[in-house]
């Protein structure tokens, strides 16, 4: 009985790992196609600098996709950590009329399909841009599809995630620590910078990493807002969908898996409380 159960769990984890393994393994196959048979080990899909085996680090479009993804993810994570921290203080510390309603409003973006977030922001930004153009004959490039809109689109739901992560930590904060600091003579500002924010630091870093990862892999919202500077997921999708696959995509996949895996583990370690060990 238990034996059968274990077999089922094992089968599930094989199911979980199989596509990831197949995506990663063919990055090292010395063949022009990501398929069997195995033609021997190579690193040229990473570092090869000549056609037809052009490695990912020499593929200009992939590298620029990586670059844009990185820029977008950094902006999204910085901004959403800021919004999330403000929201955490707002909803944990403050009392104001309609608080429950606003709290629901804060959560709602997480249950709106990403595609809808993308098109709604596209619609608003475009009509604003059209309005400016028609009324004032002024072209605001920022409101046309591009990096700026992609960042806004990703913030729209990532801010909810960071708010929840940081608010959960702030709820655990023992408010008497702030009183103790005040009692020892600190000003309100000093209390914030020396006691409260250091306490939140681990959650802020973890939330930032999560936001970075969410942004990096986002597709649905980005798809509608992207301009000429395509982030990596869009570039890769175009290749998979339209061009057909070469092992260079496996190389990118492997690279991303290792990168996001490391970051995910890092975020888990950052959040682990050092005092919780005792």
């Amino acid at each position, binding site marked *: 009985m238990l034996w059968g159960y274990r077999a089922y769990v094992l089968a599930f984890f094989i199911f979980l790992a199989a596509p990831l393994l197949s995506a990663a393994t063919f990055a090292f196959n010395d063949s022009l196609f990501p398929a069997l048979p195995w033609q021997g080990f190579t690193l040229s899909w990473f570092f090869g600098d000549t056609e037809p085996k052009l490695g990912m680090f020499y593929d200009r479009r992939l590298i620029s996709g990586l670059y844009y993804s990185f820029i977008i993810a950094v902006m999204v994570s910085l901004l959403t950590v800021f919004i999330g921290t403000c929201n955490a203080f707002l909803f944990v510390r403050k009392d104001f009329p309609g608080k429950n309603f606003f709290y629901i409003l804060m959560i709602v973006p997480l249950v709106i399909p990403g595609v809808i977030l993308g098109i709604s922001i596209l619609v608003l930004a475009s009509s604003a841009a059209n309005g400016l153009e028609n009324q004032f004959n002024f072209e605001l490039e920022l409101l046309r599809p591009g990096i700026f809109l992609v960042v806004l689109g990703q913030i729209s739901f990532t801010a909810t995630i960071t708010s929840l992560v940081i608010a959960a930590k702030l709820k655990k904060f023992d408010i008497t620590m702030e009183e103790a600091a*005040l009692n020892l003579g600190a000003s309100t500002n000093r209390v914030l910078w020396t006691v409260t924010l250091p306490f939140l630091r681990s959650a802020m870093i973890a939330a930032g990493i999560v936001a970075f990862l969410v942004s990096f892999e986002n597709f649905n919202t980005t798809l509608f807002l992207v301009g000429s500077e395509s982030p990596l997921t869009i570039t890769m999708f175009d290749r998979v969908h339209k061009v057909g696959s070469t092992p260079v995509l496996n190389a990118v996949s492997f690279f991303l898996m290792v990168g996001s895996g490391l970051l995910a583990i890092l975020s888990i370690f950052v959040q682990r409380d*050092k005092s919780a060990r005792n």
Partner: protein
Amino acid sequence: MPDSTAIDLECINISKTFSDVLAVDDVSFDIPSGSFFSILGPSGCGKTTLIRMIAGFEQPDSGEIRIKGASVLNTAPNKRNVKMVFQHLALFPMMNVYENIAYGLRCRGVAKQEIDERVNNVLDRIALPDVGEREIHQLSGGQKQRIAVARCMVLDPDVLLLDEPLGALDLKLREAMKIELKLLQHQFDTTFIYITHDQSEALVMSDQVAIMNQGRFEQVGTPQELYHNPQSAFVAGFVGDSNSWSGTAVESAGEVLKVKTDDGLELLAMPNDARSTDRSQKVSIFIRPEFIQVERTRDESENTQPGQNRLTGIVDSLLFNGANSRALVRSPTDQLIEADIVLTGGFEDLKPGEDVQLIWSCEQTMCFSA
């Protein structure tokens, strides 16, 4: 040299209401320099509110708080020279011991070298000279306690407030820390205000204790006064153990009052407040177990001396606790009475079911109008 008449803290007619609940009701007291003052009361009696008003975290609705003679009502909490040890200590987990203690000095802008000196000095005084670099979570419960006191004392406060800081410790450590806190107070020679719901903490450590109930001070006095000469039924019941009855005064002869309890006993008592001498006045009476003498019944006809209470009863059970052993005796009216028994006095073989007599004098019987 501390002036023996100097007053460190004065509270005058302090009141505070939280949404229709009167938390602190017209409380006045003053505390002389260098004394250990405890506020003892059941949870919810308003003692925490009172101490938070002194620290400045709450504003009183009315009344006046003076520290070293100067009003602090308009002083922000971070400007008052009153330091506080919190219930769960509130040590900062993101700083090590040294940084915790240096925190207040840094806020004051003290020079780095002086901070160093003063922190090391205070660590020496609490006998933990080498823990500066330790993280808070590496300390034991007792060490944390001392660091929390040191963090305040390094700032030379006028008054140190302690909000049930021993509550989270286990029993054995709590006993040790009681003595330690008392010694620390002597060492620093600073006024300590200690609030607790644990009477043994208050009685052991304090010079003066205030008993607080429902927002009011019932009585302020030395531990001995509170124990032997309570001024109200609440204090008599709250401080120390006691057996209690409620009843009606039937007859007074001089100082002695005869009371008929609600369950039908007739007891002699000495009224502790004036009003209870009135006849047919409802009264509460208290008798501490250590003042009840247990005798094995041999001679039924033994004379009751004047002013003595005598009850016959049956031993219900024995509560053995070394020198503090007690007998639970069932009275004729079916009430269980606690009485101390002296193990060396021939009671080693006392058994449940034996007939005994309980004897105590009317001077030991406290009586209050209800």
